[in-house]
């Protein structure tokens, strides 16, 4: 498949259209939804760029934390972490657990809502 323009470029082109052409024409509820849509397009762009690296890092941390070096599936690893948390086999007392969850949350918010106040606070404390 060709990749010119790339998905990332296409999304950015649509975001520019929404921000600079569509939004100024809209009022009320439509304007609100256009702003939400523009933010969503920003999230998509960041997700496209960051997902592969974020998933790889999250997977590596989980494999180590759970001692499951051969499990590749992220959802299986996270289900197992949830199970162990519920079974109280691992808790907030584990510095490795807390560090993993915080890094994962930081990576996720950087994609979802990079200007969120809680992110700035988390980065200060890392």
């Amino acid at each position: 498949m060709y990749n010119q323009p790339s998905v990332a470029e296409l999304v950015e082109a649509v975001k520019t259209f929404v921000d600079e052409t569509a939004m100024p024409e809209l009022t009320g509820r439509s304007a609100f939804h256009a702003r939400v849509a523009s933010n969503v397009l920003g999230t998509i762009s960041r997700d496209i760029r960051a997902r592969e690296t974020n998933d790889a890092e999250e997977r590596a941390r989980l494999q180590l934390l759970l001692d499951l070096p051969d499990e590749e599936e992220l959802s299986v690893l996270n289900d197992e972490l949830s199970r162990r948390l519920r079974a109280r086999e691992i808790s907030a007392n584990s510095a490795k657990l807390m560090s993993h969850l915080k890094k994962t949350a930081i990576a996720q918010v950087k994609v979802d809502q990079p200007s969120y106040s809680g992110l700035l606070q988390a980065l200060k404390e890392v």
Partner: protein
Amino acid sequence: MEVIFFPLIVAKMSELQDFERRLSAVIERIYNGSAKLAAADRLSGGASQETWLLSLTGTDSPPDIILRRSPAATATTPESNAIGLSNEAQLIAKAAEVGVPVPKVLYVLEECDGLGEGFFMSRVSGETIARRILRDERFGQARAALPGQCGTALAGIHSISPTGIEALKVSGGLDQLKRYDETYQTTGIRRPVFDLAVVWLQDNAPKPLPPVLVHGDFRLGNIMVDETGLASVLDWELAHLGDPREDIAWMCVNSWRFGQSENRLGGFGDVEALLSAYAEAGGASFTPADIDWWEILGSLKWGIMCMMMYESYRSGAAPNVERAAIGRRVSETEIDLMNLLEKQ
């Protein structure tokens, strides 16, 4: 297309005319014919609850009043937590008796009015939009006064006798944790931060206090603020009987600081100032650490609410971009939970 939709448009128009006719009749009756409805403008509200600004003409009536109503067909569903508008009206009247700033309830709709469930109340002027209250220069004095005023108002709310309002249910911290955890589990999506928070909250729950009347959604967005501070406490539909610390902590949840994280109380102030005014006005004495557990519960609840709002998109019930996008705000509460839990 015009041919197909014309009857629908006519039906909608006659529905609106019917609504305005019934509204006019009620207004003329309650003001003994000395006031007339000049205009009815829909302000906001979802499918089940509407807020209307009613402009009146007449000598003995205010120039405008507010109608809150839910059309009969969509009255409170049994699974909803909301207490229903006629109970809300009773509660607002009780709040006024103990000196809590609230709008004045002018009339509670009756079945024969044909307008559904709801009530008329006075229009209180001021601002509800959190970002303006937090940033506009004209609210500088209000921001300084608000922590104390909120403490006094909450002490008043928590002193209200719930007698006579059957719809108020007891819901303590662990009841809510259980309900929200069940909701989270039904989504089938695993977010380990939530599992961590649920288990931590289960294992560290403070001893419950005797239940008092709790507002249930006391935060910026649900209070009217003018230049002097708290003008009115609004949105009572989530009131219940529970732990007083729930109301104090909800306003502190980072999502309700609207970007001003450094000020724990709603983005505008210190919780210490609220707590001392609260105790001075007859409430219990709490330290800031006493509400930590409740703030963590609050962040978890908001995170699960965001998940549910996204679920309403996923299920096709609310197919709009806002509902889809809110699923990408769940991570905000994950990071807040991590920030809070690592300090415990």
